[in-house]
Structure formats: C-alpha cells, structure tokens
C-alpha cells in the first residue's frame, strides 16, 4: 500500500511539475521579452540613457530567472543568454548601436528558443 501511494505521489509530482514548468517558462519568457521591448525602443530612438537603464533591469531580472532556469535547462543554453545580456549592456554603455541591436536580437531569439525547447512539438520529440 505504501508503495502504491509513493508511486501515485511520484506520478502526481511528475505531471504537476511538468505543468508548472510549462506555465512558468511561458510566463517568464514573456516577461523577459517584455523587458527587452523598452531597450529596443530606446535604441531605435538612440536614447542611450534609457537603453542602458532598461538593459540593466533586463540583466537583473535575467540573473533572478537564471537560478530557476538552471534546474530546468542545460546551462550552455543559459550561458548564451547571459552572454547576450551582458554584451547588450556593454554595447549600450559604449553607445554602439549595431552591436546593441544585434545583441538585443540575439537575446530575444535565445529567450524564444528556451520557450520552444520546453514546448511539446514534433521537432522536440523527433
């Protein structure tokens, strides 16, 4: 009986955990994408102060999310995002528009990719 209960609990944890992860990844990637928008908007207006401030906020939020993401994704994926965020910050500091826009695009792509890896899709299964 104890064994059956243990297995039932394990099954619930597995399914519940998977559902939670799915919802969490969706919400947090949307949040990161939303945080990137002010950076992109400021860059398009060449408003470097706002771009840098927004990039710093993005980096701080990413550092928080990374702790949970570390348990869910391969760290190599996360390192790419961290590197893009840091480079975005640096390009905003030195006011390099091409570099900043490029890193912003990279960051957006990697975040979207994280969401895609987690979703149930043919490409992810096969």
């Amino acid at each position: 009986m104890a064994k059956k209960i243990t297995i039932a609990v394990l099954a619930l944890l597995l399914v519940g955990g998977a559902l939670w992860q799915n919802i969490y990844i969706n919400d947090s990637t949307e949040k990161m994408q939303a945080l990137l928008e002010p950076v992109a908007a400021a860059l398009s207006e060449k408003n470097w102060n706002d771009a840098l401030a927004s990039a710093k906020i993005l980096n701080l939020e990413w550092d928080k999310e990374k702790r949970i993401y570390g348990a869910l994704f391969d760290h190599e994926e996360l390192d790419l995002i961290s590197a893009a965020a840091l480079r975005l910050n640096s390009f905003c500091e030195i006011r390099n528009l091409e570099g900043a826009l490029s890193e912003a695009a990279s960051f957006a792509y990697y975040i979207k990719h994280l969401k895609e890896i987690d979703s149930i899709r043919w490409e992810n299964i096969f």
Partner: protein
Amino acid sequence: MFNVIIKTVLIYFFTMFVMRLMGKRQAGELQPFELVIAVMMAEVATTPMDSPGVPITYGIIPVAVLLLMHNAISYISLKSEKLRGVISGRPSIVIHKGIIKNEELKSLSYNLGDLLEQLRAKDVINISDVHYAVLETNGELSVMLKPELRPLNPKDLGISPPNTGFSYDVIIDGKLKPKNMEMLGFSEQSLFSLLKRCNISRVRDVFFATSDETGNVTLQDYKGNQITGSIANG
C-alpha cells in the same frame, strides 16, 4: 567538482530508491521490458553525473518516468494475459517428451549450441536425460529430467521426514530479533535459558543463531564454536 559529487550521490540514492520500488525481480531475472528499463535507467541516470552543465532534473525525471512505465506495464501484464504475451512473450517448450523441437528452436532463433550450453549450466550433461525443457520469457531454461533420472525424494521411498518448517534468524551479529521469535512462537526466555545451558552469558556474545519451527536452534559464537540445542521445552 563538488557539484558532480553531490549530483552523483543524489542520483545514486534516487535510482536506488526507484529500484526498490520496482521490486525484487529487478535484481534477479528480468523480463524483456524490465531489461530495457534497467539498461535505459543506467544510461539516463548518469547523464547529469559527469556533466556539470546538465541539471540534475535531466537524470531524475527520466528515471522517475521509467519507474512509472515499469509499474504501468507490470500492472497491464498482471491484468491481461493477452497483453502479457505481447509484452513479455510466452514460454516455449523446446524439448517435449525427450524430443528436441527443431521448429520451435528455429522460430526462437535459438540454436542447439545455446540449448546445450543452458543445459550444462543446469548440470545436465546428456541431452537425452531431459524429458521437458522450457525456454522462459526471461531467457532462462527450465529443465525436467526423465522420471528415472530425477533425484529421489522421501515420497518415492515412502518416508515421511519430520516437518521442521521454516528456519528463522533469532540472533544476528549479537542482536536479538524479537519479531522472528514471535513468528516462531517461542519466548525470548526460552532462548536465554538455552544460552545459559551453553555457558553463554549474553546475547551479544552470539554471532548468529537460527531456529526452525520445532525449536531446534543452531548457534555460533564469535570464537567459532557452534552449538545445537532446543528451545521447545524452554
């Protein structure tokens, strides 16, 4: 480095816990679906162990899923004989009344060399001694010798040996096992009386002691002295 050590320890204990939940059959002879799970589990459990960048969940979650699959398949096998046949296969009689079933061997891709090897492993050197041989679904060969060659048992001789029942450990490594004494239906006092008669003053001086259901005790102390006695009238 510490991360790898910690992950290895955690995954080891989790995998061991899962193997325990899978039951005793895992440690012994495996059905095909169990063999697959055992092999896969070994592979997936080690994935995060030696890769610092791979989260521990990449090892734990697949192992947990394999456990659930094992339980699901075991349950289905239990409830449906038809599906059991599909999942585990069916035993095959490869020797029937002393005759080797060549067609059956061919259908199993089981050659005569394999059959002879398995027979030798069962201490059967001469294939003509075999009355029936069944190839089980886990790959084991069950052998029944011809009646004139099987070992004699008391019934053949018309003898009724005493029924001593099962043998229980009552002392292991100097520690008394009260539950086993209870199963036997003898009091601890009767065991202590026996120890006293054998000039053993303490339970912890006894390396091991076993008793059958009739109260016949075999015990050995740490010096290697083995004594037999009875607690039946204790």
